[in-house]
């Protein structure tokens, strides 16, 4: 009788374990997208400060801003709009760059936030929030300064 109860307990616990494990697995598999605009920013910087940090010490800036799981720091970057273009996905790309700077910050919007770009034009001073995907650097093979990149952007003022 005692043995039967023990088996019953073990059976229930095993089922519960499988169920809970399945839930955790399913939840992580169906992890909702990272909502960059709802999360708070890790850093507030100007476009010049951000590019200078990378150009001065690439390794230090890389470890500061880029995460090891690719979900890198969320930044609010302020700068002068130097160019407005569109990528092959139809997302707006706003380059924040001062005329005196060697490199700028390419901010890629999403289909949901594209409309915000209609309100700005070249020369405006704006603050854009997004997640950083790469820093600025001088590329010896390209022989140009490569701009930093932010994805999932929106204008916050």
């Amino acid at each position: 009788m005692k043995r039967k109860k023990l088996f019953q307990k073990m059976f229930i616990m095993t089922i519960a374990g499988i169920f809970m494990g399945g839930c955790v697995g399913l939840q992580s598999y169906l992890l909702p997208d990272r909502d960059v605009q709802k999360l708070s920013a890790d850093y507030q910087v100007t476009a010049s400060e951000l590019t200078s940090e990378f150009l001065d010490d690439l390794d230090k800036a890389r470890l500061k801003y880029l995460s090891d799981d690719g979900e890198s720091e969320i930044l609010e970057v302020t700068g002068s709009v130097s160019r407005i273009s569109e990528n092959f996905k139809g997302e707006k790309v706003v380059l924040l760059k001062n005329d005196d700077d060697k490199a700028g910050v390419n901010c890629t919007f999403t289909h949901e936030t594209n409309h915000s770009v209609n309100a700005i034009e070249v020369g405006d001073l704006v603050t854009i929030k997004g997640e950083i995907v790469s820093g600025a650097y001088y590329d010896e093979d390209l022989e140009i300064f490569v701009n930093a990149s932010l994805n999932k952007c929106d204008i916050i003022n």
Partner: protein
Amino acid sequence: MKSKSLRNPGNYGNFFLRVMPVNSYYGTLLRSINILVVLIVFSGLYASAQDDARLVSEKSHIRFFSSTPAEDIEAHNYSATSTINTGNGNVAFSVPMQGFEFDKRLMQRHFNQERFLDTQQFPTARLVGTITNLDAIDFSSNGKYDAIIEGELTIKGVTNKISEKGTVTVNGNRVTAESVFDVTLADYGVEFTSGRPASNIAGTIEVTVHAEYQPQ
């Protein structure tokens, strides 16, 4: 004095000025022609310097596609920068690895992690090469040209030699380049022998590159 120096073969060595009288209408005319010749030569040099111009692309799409019986996985990157030097055929691509977007967030996280692409340590992949059949491509004339690129591809800090085919399309000032090639992950130190990655990620993935260039 003037005519003597102009007649001196050591000075300029201009054939016309040596054989023609200089203090004449023809002499003046020929000196003008001389200046014109110099101007034409310099404008020619200027034009060839322009041919040497570099094209820069910040508008691109790089896709990779992995297919196994278990599942198909693809990712897209719109953040790459590339240049083509139309004078010597040098081509370079710099691809920020954290710019790859997946359908599933978990997959994207795995892709970036140390045991996969380790994108914090190796934030860019790069392709550096030369168009070997540059003579077959006329960057000043509209058309679609086959291109052969030989060079080196670096992913996760590992460099391998590559030779791939692509096309270059010239449409006025706008030049686009396209290529599809295979990359064997194990060649770049990305290898899985067991578990889900081994069964769900193909050993060889298909990479599609599409870039639009503007003159610098």
